[in-house]
C-alpha cells in the first residue's frame, strides 16, 4: 500500500477546450463528481486549461491547497502532456505526479451522445485519478548533446538548413544520395511568382554550401543505419564510388568529350543524353564528374580471356583503332588471330541476341586488328628484371605467357620443338582461315619485345628441367600443346600407305610439303581438325573428299561456319557411320568398311551416344584415309619426371588456381593441361599463368594474386573472373576436354535490354539494321588455293555493326577518359566507402518524387512525343536543358525542331484524384501559371495556351496577383479536368494534333481542344524509399506516404523520434518559400538542442528490483537494446539506464514483476484498469 496515501492530495481539472469538450461532455458534472473521489482535494473545470490563466489556476491550487498529485482531463497527452508537467514542475511538485485523461480526442470528438460522452469522461478521469495515486516521482537524467548536426538530403531544404546551422558556427554533415546537391529546385527554370531563375537563386546556395568550412558535404552517399538517441546519434554512411577522384578532378570535361557511351540524362528527364562519364549539369556541386557503371557486360564476362569486348567495340565505333587494339592486347596478344578463328562465346552471351542477332564481335575484332595493322604496333618500354623464365612450346599459350612475362620485365626464353613459332595456329589451322602473314606479324610483334626464341629444341629430348634450373631459370612454363593424333585402332592403320593422321597431314600442308594425299580422300571425324583436314585436302588438285562422322551432321563439334564452308566446297559428309576395318592392295589402303550407327541414349556430354547397327556394314573406297578423331598431348620425355602428374589422357595436372605442377617453379597450361581446346582458352591460360608465375617469383601469398589492371575485376561481383579465366573454368575443362568448350560458368540471370539505360535509344536507332556479314570468297575460287576465304568488314559495315552494341555495362571501361584526364583523376577500380558521423540531431530533408506518368495512359504520355511532364517542361524551358532553353516540340524522329503554336496545361494529374493521391499537390496551380507566362514570353504572345484547372489555388504572397497577370497575358483558363488526350490529323495535313478532351464545367459542356503540346502537372509524392529511410530513423509515414510530423499544427518539424526533425517536401508538398521557411525552422530546432547542450533523458525507463529478481534473464534475451546486463555476483539482471528506451519488454516478460517500467508499474496499470472498468 502506498505509504503516504493519507497525505495524498489530488487536484482534478476538467478542460472545456471551448466547446470542443464542453459541447459533448457535461464538464461541470464530471468535475463535481470527481470532487467526490477519495483523496481528491480540488476539482475544477475551466475553459482552456492549457491557457496561461488555466495553468496559473493549477499552480495556485498546488501551492494553496498543498496538492501533490494533478490530473488534467483535456486533449491528448501527446499535445499538452508536457505543458502540464511543466506546470507541476513550476509549482514545485514532481512532473511525474501528473496524469492526463484525454477526454477530447477520445471522448467529445468521437462520441455522439452527450450522456455517454460524459460517462466515458468519468471513467477516464477515474482511471487517471486511480493511476496518479500510485505514480512515483521521477527525475530526468541529463545527457550531453553532441554539437554537430546531420542533414539528410541536399535539396533547397537541406542546403538552407545546413547553411543556417553552419552560420551559427556548428559543424554540419550534409548527406546527399545524388552526385550533386541542388535537388529538384535546380532542375527548374524560373520560380513563381517572382520569376527569378531557379539557378540564379539556387546556385549561390550551392556554392555557399560548398565553401562554408563548417559544412561537410557527403554527396553520392546514403545513410544505412542510425544508432543512439537524441543528442548522440551515430550515422553509418555509404559513399558510392564515382570512379573519379574528387580531389583531383578539375571538372574540365575532357573525359566526357572522349567517352564513347551515351545514356539518357536523368537530370534532363531523359530528354537529352549524357556520357557514361559526366555530371548532372554544369553548375553541379561538387564539380566532380562521375561514371555510371552497371555490372560487367555479358560478353566480357563470357570471354575466357576476359577481353573488354564492349570497350573495344565502342572504340571501334569511334574509329579509335589503336586504343581498341591496345585494349585487346591487354588480355591477348593475338587480335588478328582471334579475329579470325575465335569461337566467340561472347556472341552467344550478347544481350542484343534477345532482340535480333548478337553483335558480330569476332568480325569487329578482326576489323580492329586489320585497321591497326600489326606492322605499326609499338613495343612499349620495359623495365627489366633480372629473373629468367623459360617457356617450352611456342603455341598461343606459350607465346602469350612469354609476352606477358616479358612485359613484367622478365628475361624470357621460348623453346620450340619445330622450326617455327605458332604451334597449332601454324601447323593445325590452314592458311585459308588464318593467313600466315597475319600470324607471322603477330608472333613477330611478341618476340620483338625482347624474347629469346630457340627453335628445334624439344623439352624432354634436347633439354630437361634440371638443365633449365641449372641454367638459372626461376620458373618454367610448359605449353607444348596436344599434337598427337588418336588412332582409330584399326589393323593396318599405322602400316598401310595412304593413311595419314590429321595433325601430320595439316602440318605437311602448312609447311608446303608433299602430303601423298590423292584421289578419293576419306576424313574420319567431326571436329574442327577433321573439317580443316577435309577442306585442305579439297584444295589439293585431283582430290574428292568425304567426311565420315559417327553422329549426325548437326552434332558435329566443328563450328557451323566451317561446316557450311566445307559443304560449299563440295565436300560430302557421311553421317552416322564408323570405320571398322581397312581393305588394302599391295600395301595401300583401298577401302574402308563402315558400320551404320543409330543414336542411343545420351552420354556424359549430353549428346546421344552413337550405337552401331549389327550387319549394317557398307564399303567406302578410298585412296587416302585421314583419321581426325582427336589429339592428346605428347608427353614423351616429361612423363618420367618425378613430381609431374600426368592424367590418363596424357594431360599434365596443375593446381587449378596457381597453374603450378607438382614441381615447384614448374607451371603448365594450354592444351597440355586442357587437352585440345580453343585458341582463346589457350591464350587465357597463357596470360593467367604469366601472372601466377610473376606472383610466384615475387614470392607472393597465393591468396592475394593481383587482380588484372582493369576490366571485369574492378567490379567486386566478378572476383571469380579476375584475370579472364577462373579456376573453375580450368577444372571444368579437365572434366571433358574433348567436347566443344562450354561457355564460362555464369549463374547470373540474363541481362535484359530494358534494364540498360542507353539500350532503348540504340535499339530505336538501329532497328531493322541486320547483323553484319563478311564477304566470303566464291567456293570455285577458294579451292584453287589457300587464300583467305573470309574478307574484312568494310569501315561502314564495322561502324554500323559497332553501333548495334547496347552498352550493357554502361561505362565500357575503354579508359579513353583515363587517357584524356590530365590530372589523372579517374580511378576505375574505386569501390564504395563506408564511414560514420556523429550528430546531436538529424534533419530529414529527403524531398519528393513526382508521380510516375506511365500510370496515366489516358493522357497519352509515352504514346505521343509531345505530351510532357512538368519536370520535363522545366528542362525544356531551362537554359541548361536539352534545347538550350527554347520551348520546342519533338518532330517525327523525336528531335526538337519547331515551337508549338498551342499548348494545353493539365492540372491535378494524380493529385486530388482518389485513384492516385487524394491530397492537393499544392504547387501545381502556381507553376502551371508560370508555364503559361514562360510560353507566352518565349514562344510568343500569339501562342494559344489553355490552362485546364479544377480550382485555382493561389494562396501565397503575391500569388493571386501573379494569377491576375497571367490572365491578362491572354492565357485561356478552362475550369474542368482533362479526361483524356487523343490525337487527330492536323489542318492542312501538317502532321498530327493532340486533342485535349475535357468538360468545361462553367459552360457545362464537353470541349475538344486541338493543341501541339500537352504539359501534365504531375502530383508530388513521397520518395519511393521513404519507408526505408523512415525505418532507419524511426519516423512514421502518414497515410499519404509523407513523413509524419509530431503534431500537424504545433509540431510540424518535430517527429515522434526526439532529435529528428523534418524539413521540406519529405513532410508534405510545399513550394520553395514554405520549404525554405521550414528548413530554417528545423535548423532552429537543431540549434536550440545544441545550444541547450544537454537533453533530458526521459526517466520513464525500466528498473529491476534486485530483491525480487530471480536472475532468469528472460528480460535480458528480450531487450531490443541490449540494455540489460547480468550481475554475476548478485545473480540479478540490471538495467543500463543509458541504453534503456523504456519499451517495457522486460516488464512484460517478468513473472515476478521484478522488472518494471518506472512510469508503467503494475500497480499503476492495475489502478488504471480498475478505473476504466469502474462501475459509475
Amino acid at each position, binding site marked *: 500500500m502506498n505509504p503516504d496515501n493519507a497525505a495524498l492530495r489530488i487536484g482534478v481539472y476538467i478542460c472545456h477546450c471551448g466547446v470542443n469538450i464542453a459541447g459533448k461532455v457535461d464538464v461541470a458534472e464530471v468535475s463535481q463528481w470527481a470532487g467526490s473521489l477519495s483523496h481528491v482535494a480540488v476539482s475544477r473545470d475551466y475553459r482552456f486549461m492549457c491557457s496561461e490563466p488555466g495553468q496559473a489556476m493549477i499552480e495556485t491550487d498546488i501551492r494553496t491547497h498543498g496538492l501533490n498529485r494533478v490530473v488534467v482531463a483535456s486533449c*491528448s*497527452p*501527446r*499535445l499538452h502532456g508536457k505543458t502540464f508537467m511543466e506546470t507541476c514542475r513550476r509549482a514545485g511538485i514532481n512532473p511525474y505526479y501528473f496524469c492526463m485523461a*484525454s477526454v*477530447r*480526442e*477520445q*471522448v467529445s*470528438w*468521437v*462520441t*455522439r*451522445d452527450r*450522456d*455517454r*460522452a460524459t*460517462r*466515458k469522461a468519468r*471513467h*477516464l478521469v477515474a*482511471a487517471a485519478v486511480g493511476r496518479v495515486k500510485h505514480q512515483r516521482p521521477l527525475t530526468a537524467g541529463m545527457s550531453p548533446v553532441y554539437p554537430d548536426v546531420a542533414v539528410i538530403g541536399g535539396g533547397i531544404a537541406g542546403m538552407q538548413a545546413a547553411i543556417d546551422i553552419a552560420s551559427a558556427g556548428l559543424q554540419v554533415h550534409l548527406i546527399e544520395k545524388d552526385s550533386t546537391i541542388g535537388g529538384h529546385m535546380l532542375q527548374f527554370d524560373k520560380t513563381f511568382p517572382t520569376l527569378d531563375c531557379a539557378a540564379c537563386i539556387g546556385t549561390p546556395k550551392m556554392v555557399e554550401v560548398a565553401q562554408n568550412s563548417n559544412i561537410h558535404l557527403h554527396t553520392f552517399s546514403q545513410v544505412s543505419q542510425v544508432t543512439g538517441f537524441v543528442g548522440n546519434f551515430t550515422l553509418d554512411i555509404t559513399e558510392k564510388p564515382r570512379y573519379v577522384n574528387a580531389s583531383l578532378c578539375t571538372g574540365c570535361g575532357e573525359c566526357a568529350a572522349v567517352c564513347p557511351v551515351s545514356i539518357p540524362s536523368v537530370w534532363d528527364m531523359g530528354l537529352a543524353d549524357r556520357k557514361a562519364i559526366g555530371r548532372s549539369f554544369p553548375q553541379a556541386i561538387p564539380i566532380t564528374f562521375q561514371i555510371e557503371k552497371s555490372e560487367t557486360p555479358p560478353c566480357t564476362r563470357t570471354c575466357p580471356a576476359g577481353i573488354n569486348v564492349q570497350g573495344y567495340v565502342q572504340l571501334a565505333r569511334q574509329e579509335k583503332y589503336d586504343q581498341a587494339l591496345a585494349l585487346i592486347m591487354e588480355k591477348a596478344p593475338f587480335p588478328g588471330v582471334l579475329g579470325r578463328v575465335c569461337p566467340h562465346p561472347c556472341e552467344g552471351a550478347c544481350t542484343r541476341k534477345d532482340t535480333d542477332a548478337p553483335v558480330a564481335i569476332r568480325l569487329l575484332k578482326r576489323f580492329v586488328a586489320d585497321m591497326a595493322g600489326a606492322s605499326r604496333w609499338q613495343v612499349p618500354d620495359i623495365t627489366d628484371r633480372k629473373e629468367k623464365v623459360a617457356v617450352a612450346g611456342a603455341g598461343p599459350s606459350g607465346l602469350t605467357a612469354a609476352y606477358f612475362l616479358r612485359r613484367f620485365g622478365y628475361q624470357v626464353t621460348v623453346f620450340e620443338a619445330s622450326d617455327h613459332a605458332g604451334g597449332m595456329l601454324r601447323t593445325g589451322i590452314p592458311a585459308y582461315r588464318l593467313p600466315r602473314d597475319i600470324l607471322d606479324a603477330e608472333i613477330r610483334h611478341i618476340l620483338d619485345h625482347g624474347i629469346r626464341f630457340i627453335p628445334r629444341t624439344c623439352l624432354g629430348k634436347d633439354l630437361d628441367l634440371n638443365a633449365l634450373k641449372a641454367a638459372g631459370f626461376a620458373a618454367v612454363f610448359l605449353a607444348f600443346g596436344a599434337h598427337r593424333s588418336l588412332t582409330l585402332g584399326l589393323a593396318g592403320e599405322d602400316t598401310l600407305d595412304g593413311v595419314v593422321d590429321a595433325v601430320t597431314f595439316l602440318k605437311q600442308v602448312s609447311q608446303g610439303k608433299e602430303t601423298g594425299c590423292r584421289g578419293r580422300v576419306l576424313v574420319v571425324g567431326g571436329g574442327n581438325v577433321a573439317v580443316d583436314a577435309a577442306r585442305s585436302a579439297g584444295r589439293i588438285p585431283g582430290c574428292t573428299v568425304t567426311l565420315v562422322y559417327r553422329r549426325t551432321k548437326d552434332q558435329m563439334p566443328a563450328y557451323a561456319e566451317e561446316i557450311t564452308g566445307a559443304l560449299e566446297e563440295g565436300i560430302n559428309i557421311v553421317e552416322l557411320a564408323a570405320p571398322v576395318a581397312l581393305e588394302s592392295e599391295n600395301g595401300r589402303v583401298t577401302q574402308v568398311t563402315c558400320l551404320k550407327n543409330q543414336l542411343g541414349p545420351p552420354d556424359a556430354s549430353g549428346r546421344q551416344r552413337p550405337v552401331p547397327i549389327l550387319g549394317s556394314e557398307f564399303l567406302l573406297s578410298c585412296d587416302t584415309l585421314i583419321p581426325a578423331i582427336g589429339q592428346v598431348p605428347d608427353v614423351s620425355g616429361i612423363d618420367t619426371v618425378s613430381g609431374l602428374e600426368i592424367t590418363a589422357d596424357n594431360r599434365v595436372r596443375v593446381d587449378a588456381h596457381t597453374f603450378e605442377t607438382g614441381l615447384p617453379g614448374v607451371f603448365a597450361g594450354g592444351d597440355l593441361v586442357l587437352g585440345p581446346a580453343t585458341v582463346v582458352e589457350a591464350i587465357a591460360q597463357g596470360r593467367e599463368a604469366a601472372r601466377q608465375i610473376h606472383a610466384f617469383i615475387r614470392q607472393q601469398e597465393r591468396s592475394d594474386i593481383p587482380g588484372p589492371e582493369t576490366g571485369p575485376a574492378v567490379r567486386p561481383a566478378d572476383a571469380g573472373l579476375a584475370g579472364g579465366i577462373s579456376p573453375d573454368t580450368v577444372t571444368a575443362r579437365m572434366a571433358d576436354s574433348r567436347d566443344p568448350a562450354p561457355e564460362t560458368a555464369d549463374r547470373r540471370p540474363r541481362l535484359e535490354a530494358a534494364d540498360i539505360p542507353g539500350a532503348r535509344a540504340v535499339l530505336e536507332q538501329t532497328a531493322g539494321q541486320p547483323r553484319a556479314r563478311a564477304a566470303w570468297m566464291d567456293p570455285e575460287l577458294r579451292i584453287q588455293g589457300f587464300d583467305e576465304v573470309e574478307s574484312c568488314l568494310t569501315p561502314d559495315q564495322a561502324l554500323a555493326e559497332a553501333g548495334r552494341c547496347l552498352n550493357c555495362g554502361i561505362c565500357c571501361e575503354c579508359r579513353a577518359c583515363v587517357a584524356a584526364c590530365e590530372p589523372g583523376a579517374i580511378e576505375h577500380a574505386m569501390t564504395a566507402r563506408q564511414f560514420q558521423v556523429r550528430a546531436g540531431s538529424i534533419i530529414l530533408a529527403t524531398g519528393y518524387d513526382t508521380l510516375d506518368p506511365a500510370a496515366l495512359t489516358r493522357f497519352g504520355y509515352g504514346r505521343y512525343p509531345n505530351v510532357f511532364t512538368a519536370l520535363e517542361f522545366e528542362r525544356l524551358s531551362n537554359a541548361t536543358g536539352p534545347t538550350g532553353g527554347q520551348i520546342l516540340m519533338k518532330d517525327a524522329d523525336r528531335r526538337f525542331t519547331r515551337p508549338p503554336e498551342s499548348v494545353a496545361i493539365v492540372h491535378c494529374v494524380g493529385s486530388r484524384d482518389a485513384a492516385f493521391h487524394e491530397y492537393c499537390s499544392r504547387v501545381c496551380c502556381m507553376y502551371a501559371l508560370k508555364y503559361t507566362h514562360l510560353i507566352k514570353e518565349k514562344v510568343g504572345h500569339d501562342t494559344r495556351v489553355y490552362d485546364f484547372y479544377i480550382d485555382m489555388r493561389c494562396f501565397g504572397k503575391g500569388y493571386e496577383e501573379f494569377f491576375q497577370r497571367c490572365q491578362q497575358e491572354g492565357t485561356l483558363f478552362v475550369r474542368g479536368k482533362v479526361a483524356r488526350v487523343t490525337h487527330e490529323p492536323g489542318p492542312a495535313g501538317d502532321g498530327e494534333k493532340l486533342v485535349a478532351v475535357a468538360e468545361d464545367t462553367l459552360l457545362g459542356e464537353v470541349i475538344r481542344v486541338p493543341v501541339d503540346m500537352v504539359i501534365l502537372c504531375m502530383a508530388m509524392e513521397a520518395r519511393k524509399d521513404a519507408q526505408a529511410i523512415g*525505418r532507419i530513423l*524511426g519516423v*512514421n*509515414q*502518414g*497515410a*499519404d506516404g509523407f513523413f*509524419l510530423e509530431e503534431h*500537424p499544427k504545433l509540431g510540424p518539424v518535430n517527429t*515522434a523520434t526526439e532529435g529528428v526533425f523534418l524539413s521540406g517536401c519529405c513532410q508534405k508538398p510545399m513550394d520553395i518559400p514554405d520549404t525554405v521557411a521550414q528548413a530554417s525552422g528545423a535548423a532552429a530546432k537543431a540549434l536550440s538542442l545544441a545550444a541547450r547542450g544537454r537533453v533530458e533523458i526521459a526517466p*520513464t525507463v525500466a528498473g529491476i528490483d534486485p530483491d525480487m529478481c530471480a536472475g532468469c534473464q528472460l528480460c535480458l534475451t*528480450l531487450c*531490443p537494446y541490449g540494455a540489460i546486463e547480468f550481475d554475476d555476483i548478485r545473480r540479478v539482471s540490471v538495467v543500463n539506464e543509458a541504453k534503456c*528506451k*523504456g*519499451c*517495457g*519488454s522486460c*516488464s*512484460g*516478460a517478468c513473472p515476478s514483476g521484478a522488472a518494471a*517500467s518506472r512510469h*508503467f508499474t*503494475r500497480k499503476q*496499470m*492495475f489502478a*488504471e*484498469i*480498475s478505473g*476504466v*472498468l469502474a*462501475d*459509475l
Partner: protein
Amino acid sequence: MPETVMNTDPVSAASPGSQGPAAVGTDVFEPVIIAFVCNWCTYTAADLAGTSRLSYPDNVRLVRVMCTGMVDTQYVIKAFLEGADAVLVSGCHPGDCHYINGNYKARRRITLLRQILPRFGIDAARLRLTWIGASDGIEFARTMNRFVTQIKELGPCQTRLHAVI
C-alpha cells in the same frame, strides 16, 4: 444491476455498431471494452481519429502503454476479471515497432492467452491483437466499430455478471 449494462437510451441504441441483436434481458447490451494501445502507433491513430471527428462507440476505453511489448499477460487477465467484455491489444505494424520488435513479443503472449482463456468460456473473439499504424485513424475507428459489433453479438462476458475474481 450495473448501470453500464442497463441502457435504454434510444440515441445510443442507434449509435454505430449497436445493431447486434444480442441483448441482456430486455435492455440493449452495452459492452465495456478495454484497449491497451501503444503510444507510437495505435494511440496516435486514436488521436487522429479524434481530430478527424470519426465517431466510434463509447464502449471502448483506451489504456496507453509505451509498447505492446510491455503488456503483461496479467493486465489482460485482470481486465477480464474486473468485468471487461473484451480486451484489445493494438500496436504498430510488423517492422514499424518504435522499439523494433515489441509487437512480436505481444503476439506470443496473446497467442498463449488465447489458448488458456477460452477454456473457461472467455471466447477467443473477446481478446484481439491488431496492428494499427499512426496514420490509420480511419482504420482505428473501423476496428472499434467492428469490435463492438462483434462483442454485442457475443453478449456480455460472464465476469461482467458475476464476481469471479
